[in-house]
């Protein structure tokens, strides 16, 4: 037996063993398993995989939805390079992400810590803090139109109590994006639940030991709770980054789809939408979608590279 023939023989043996190991019942189960999951598989292929691939194809064409598309090669991508509105939208999106993601995590973490305290009526507080996360986005955005109302809105009323004249919020080029960020932070309930679950997974005996060693509240949080929370925080960071690039509904509702004032809230998702459904530039919009996809991919990889190594998986 030569050295080269040995692996193939082993592989052949493994393969025949696997085949023979599968009983007729298992094969039937496998078949019926496929049959029963086929609606989901077909749905996934038809409604997700196919549109994704078609959008990739469209990104190289002049597709309008209404007429046969013409092949443009990299034309759409080249046009994006010199499209100031696209770069403006990308800048606005990054501004939104850089502020809203850390802020959202900080608020969610703060609320999770509070809800982890041993107080009476805890479940009621959890419901109160979680409620905003389950209100439909459009409905809550409409409510926030009232909140941001410069004359009658809650926000400026409260600021007025402290002698501060609130801005015009959604009418102000400086304050429109912060307004959207405040709105997004209001819905931090989902993340709060995840972080709360993480906090409750921290072994109590570690806290007790640290306490015996003389660690105070902040040291215990920093050296015991935080390491256990790091996978959750990484998750929050990555999903926040992805969601930030998909940010659309609130800005659509709060600015009536304009991205105003002065284009200061024109985020990439809205610009993509305008091109696809308002200007009939489906090919161009597809190119925007793929550029965003690549940026999100690179951003996620960067996050994993920079932060991933510091994440503590409980000794795993």
């Amino acid at each position, binding site marked *: 037996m030569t050295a080269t023939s040995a692996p193939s023989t082993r592989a052949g043996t493994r393969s025949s063993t696997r085949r023979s190991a599968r009983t007729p019942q298992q094969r039937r189960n496998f078949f019926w398993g496929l049959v029963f999951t086929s609606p989901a598989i077909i749905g996934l292929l038809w409604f997700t995989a196919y549109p994704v691939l078609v959008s990739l194809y469209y990104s190289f064409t002049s597709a309008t939805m209404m007429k046969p598309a013409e092949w443009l090669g990299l034309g759409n991508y080249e046009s994006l390079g010199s499209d100031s509105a696209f770069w403006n939208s990308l800048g606005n999106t990054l501004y939104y992400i850089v502020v809203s993601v850390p802020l959202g995590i900080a608020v969610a973490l703060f609320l999770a810590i509070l809800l982890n305290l041993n107080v*009476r009526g805890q479940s009621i507080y959890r419901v109160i803090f979680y409620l905003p996360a389950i209100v439909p986005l459009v409905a809550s955005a409409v409510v926030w139109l*009232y909140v941001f109302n410069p004359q009658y809105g*809650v926000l400026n009323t409260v600021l007025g109590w402290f002698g501060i004249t609130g801005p015009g919020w959604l009418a102000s*080029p400086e304050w429109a994006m912060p307004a959207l960020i405040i709105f997004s932070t209001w819905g931090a309930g989902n993340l709060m639940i995840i972080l709360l679950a993480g906090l409750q997974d921290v072994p109590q005996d570690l806290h007790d030991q640290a306490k015996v060693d003389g660690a105070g509240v902040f040291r215990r949080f920093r050296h015991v709770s935080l390491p256990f929370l790091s996978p959750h925080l990484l998750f929050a960071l990555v999903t926040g980054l992805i969601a930030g690039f998909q940010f659309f509904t609130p800005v659509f509702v709060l600015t009536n789809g304009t991205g105003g004032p002065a284009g200061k809230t024109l985020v990439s998702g809205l610009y993509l939408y305008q091109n696809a459904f308002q200007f009939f530039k489906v090919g161009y919009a597809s190119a925007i979608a793929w550029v965003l996809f690549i940026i999100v991919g690179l951003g996620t990889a960067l996050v994993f590279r920079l932060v991933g190594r510091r994440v503590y998986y409980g000794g795993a």
Partner: protein
Amino acid sequence: MPAARISRRRAIQALGGLGLGAMGLLNGGCTFTKGTPPITDVGLDKKPAPGRKTNIEVYSVWGGTVGAGMVKLAALFEKAQPDIGVRVVYAPAGMGGGAVQQKLFTAIAGDNPPDVGQLVPAQAPQWVELGIMTDLTDRYRAAGLGKDDFFAPIWDGIQYKDRVWQMQWDADPNFPFFWNKQLFEDSGLDPDKPPRTLDEVDEYSAKILKKSGANVTKIGMIPWDSYGYSNSLFTWGFGFGAEFYDQEREEVTPDHEYSVKALEWIVKYARSVGGADRVTVTPPGLQLHPFSTGNIGMSPLVAPNYRDIKTNVKDMKIGATLLPFEPPGAKAPGAGAWIGGWGMFIPATARHKDEAWEFMRWAGATDEGTKAQWDTIGFPPGYRKASVLSEIRDDPVMAPFYDVLTTATNIRPPVPVADFYFTQLDEQISNAVLGLSTPLQALRTVKKNVMGEWDRFRKEVQA
């Protein structure tokens, strides 16, 4: 320990209380007022009447009472003839002015179009070039309908390249000019003397202006917000004598001399009150136009807004007249008025074009249909010979709109990249009003971008 527990509890209770308090303020501090449409048991969709030879599908872009009105209109059409049933499908139009109709576009792209769709007339050139619309010229001719049957701006707007493409059943007269007599009186102005020129608007505005700190609490007018930035420039631009496109040269002209002057006036006005973002005269609710607050001296209004204010703020004394103008470009009050509204069209791939045309013609260009439309939806018709026009003329709320309908000469520029043009105007005018560019720079940028887009589109449709 107990002390620590109390403090934690207090902390969390305080935060929870803050949350509840905020919810309370949301509900109590903001008045969901007035102007709430009457509850109706008519939905926004409708099945066709049973037993008809042919059923057509009509897309309706409206919610609320207008959407319910479209359903009632379709039912009246079914009563008026025995053969055609009408299915009404609610297919909302998104974004300001209803520019985006995803459901319609995807239905057409998926080869499952309705038989009748709706559009803003200025969208037609682009939709025609994309092959979305059916040419109705021969049907108009066969029905004996021509130029004399419609108000002049309507006839201009429904044509493109000398063919007719739509039936404009809603002629939206934009705008009469309204003033708040009480606020005039309170500001030392004659409550029965509205401004005739924009110079007089400035003069009156200076007397009406009131501020609280940096915020404006009473203002003469908000010229950059006459229903969005682009509509504002159209209105006041026409009021200065501007033109927004050159049909012969196939060119948009946002940088027309009088258009620039109009924007300069708007920007100057914004600066004179301390900045557009400092105006805080918005109403507590979303249903009523800000003019209803009594903090705005003068405003152009669309009919539904005026009707709502008259219904809900009964003690408000409002005067109505034609839009102020600015010589020498414009010659008389009302020069800034233009006709907006909605048209119906037949998608090129629709299955029942003959029946679709019957419905459109009935709703938009017959005595019976325009009367039914007025009774159910309540928009003025574009059909000049409609007998219901005398009813509109004599209606106390609609009379100012009748005056505009019968005298306005302008329409928004029907160019093949109209939506792009309007979006560019919105963005660039916003820049100028907020002091981020000069009016001339802003309007030149619009021209450059729109002509670039028009060239690209021209190449695309010729390919």
